[in-house]
């Protein structure tokens, strides 16, 4: 038996929305960063589902590149977060507000 593709797409849309909501609501920088990772993984799920639907590996290959790039981004992002923590001893985004809009 096959799970219909719509299930995967709805699941990934929900995951993506949770990621967007968490990005906007959460106040801890690490959590904000994790919500971006959640969004990226929702995208990966979409790619894999569509790759299965179309019987084309190019979607799965895309997922590998997304994972590699996400890892590179995580390395840089965590370095920036450490620099922020050293400079101000806080990880609350509301306190990183030296410059105001």
């Amino acid at each position, binding site marked *: 038996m096959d799970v219909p593709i719509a299930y995967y797409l709805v699941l990934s849309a929900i995951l993506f929305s949770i990621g967007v909501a968490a990005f906007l609501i959460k106040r801890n920088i690490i959590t904000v960063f994790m919500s971006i990772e959640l969004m990226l993984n929702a995208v990966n799920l979409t790619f894999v589902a569509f790759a299965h639907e179309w019987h084309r590996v190019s979607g799965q290959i895309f997922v590998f590149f997304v994972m590699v790039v996400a890892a*590179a981004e995580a390395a840089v*992002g965590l370095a920036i977060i450490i620099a922020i923590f050293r*400079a101000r001893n806080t990880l609350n985004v509301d306190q990183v507000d030296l410059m105001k*809009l």
Partner: protein
Amino acid sequence: MTANFQLLRILPEVILTIAGVLIMLIEPLLGHSTSRKPLGWFAVLSVFASLAASFAQLGMAAGTAYYGVIQTDAFSVFFHVLIALIVLVSLLVTIDTANANTESLGELFALMVFGAVGMMLMTSATELLLVFIGLEISSISTYIMAGFRRKNVKSTESSLKYFLLGSFATAFFLYGIALIFGATGTTDINAIASQLGTSAVPMFATIGLGMILIGLGFKVSAAPFHVWTPDAYEGAPSPVVGLMSTAPKAAAFAVLLRIVYVAFPALHAHWQPLLWLMAAFSMTIGNLGALRQQNVKRMLAYSSIAHAGYLLVAFTALSTDGIAAASFYAMSYAAMNVGIFAVVSHASGYDERLSLISDYRGLAYRSPLLGGALGFFLISLIGIPFTGGFFGKFYVFASALHSGMVWLTIIGLVNSGIAAFYYLRLLASAYSKPTNNALLDPMPRASFALLLALVITISGTLILGIVPGQILAMSHNAAVSLTSGIANPAPSATHQ
């Protein structure tokens, strides 16, 4: 097609990658007190070499390489040259500004070069996977550059905000690609176009295009996706801001042009009103925001939002006209904006002594060279005739009028009027007599690197303003080569 011949199509990127890796290898071997400036000059040389390699691509017939992933044509060469020139000037300004003993300065040069590789890949990629990788190479380099003064609180804050919102935008961009893949079964831009041309447009493709517009809207800082811009620009080192306000935007605009005009002409009725709105919002919000800024870099950040708006006006025009106007505007904006940041960087120094508009009081008396250059670039940003800024705006609005966008043109012209206020405020400040004697110290002497940077940007702005014919012809060729790809999709699987 032989492998060597294909290599020529990515030669500019290959040269820069090798140069960047070499700089990264040499940097840690240098002692603590050794000057890093020779590394900077090496980077400058490599950018020159890559510029030459880009021009050489004009001699080859337009075509694809590596299974249709790369396409070099007049369009990609135009943006390659633009990006190479921006990075060249930014390197020169960095060499001028940084103290000889700035910690691990070589890494900054390498990052600029790596960023250029990503942006160049974006402009010649015809496969969304490669667009994504290029976008990330350029973005990740820019995140690090923004936070390069890592002991400075503002610099790290700027880097964090840029990083978080940039990755947020990337996720939207990717989700868009995934949905388009679902709708068409391919991520090749030319194949998407032929797929969408033959059947009714699936809903996923429309949503996907919307997501891509959001993602790229963030990258070009178009309103309502502009909120990160002022903070990111205020905290980042000035030479880097000159780079990141022009080069990644030019690359993102090139991608946007390729995606909307090559892949999605079928959805023209959907994306045109969206871009109309983004253009109107960006111009208005950018200019009104700039009016109330006291900090020069924040003011220029809002001005860059407004200029992204002017550029988006060109997207509402007919295809060839609009692409040519947009490419020309990208070049003229880059010339004047990189130039003004060269002045700002030198005047305020690596530790940013001058930040407010009132700090620039008497700049023209302290250093006639810097004052004159500042005045010239501001005049061009306002859009006064005989400068690149004037012709850029002229072609954009003319192309919009040709396709009947009367209201958008009126909004744009009103905005150009508003913009004159804040540019003139900085100009007046720089040319009024300083009241405070402390502000009368002469500026540090301009180095050869700065002079070279100013010569390139000023002559660029003048050429674009007085004899724009040749560059206009180039941008027109670029537009033709981009749109002709629609009628005659490049073969993607013929040379395996």
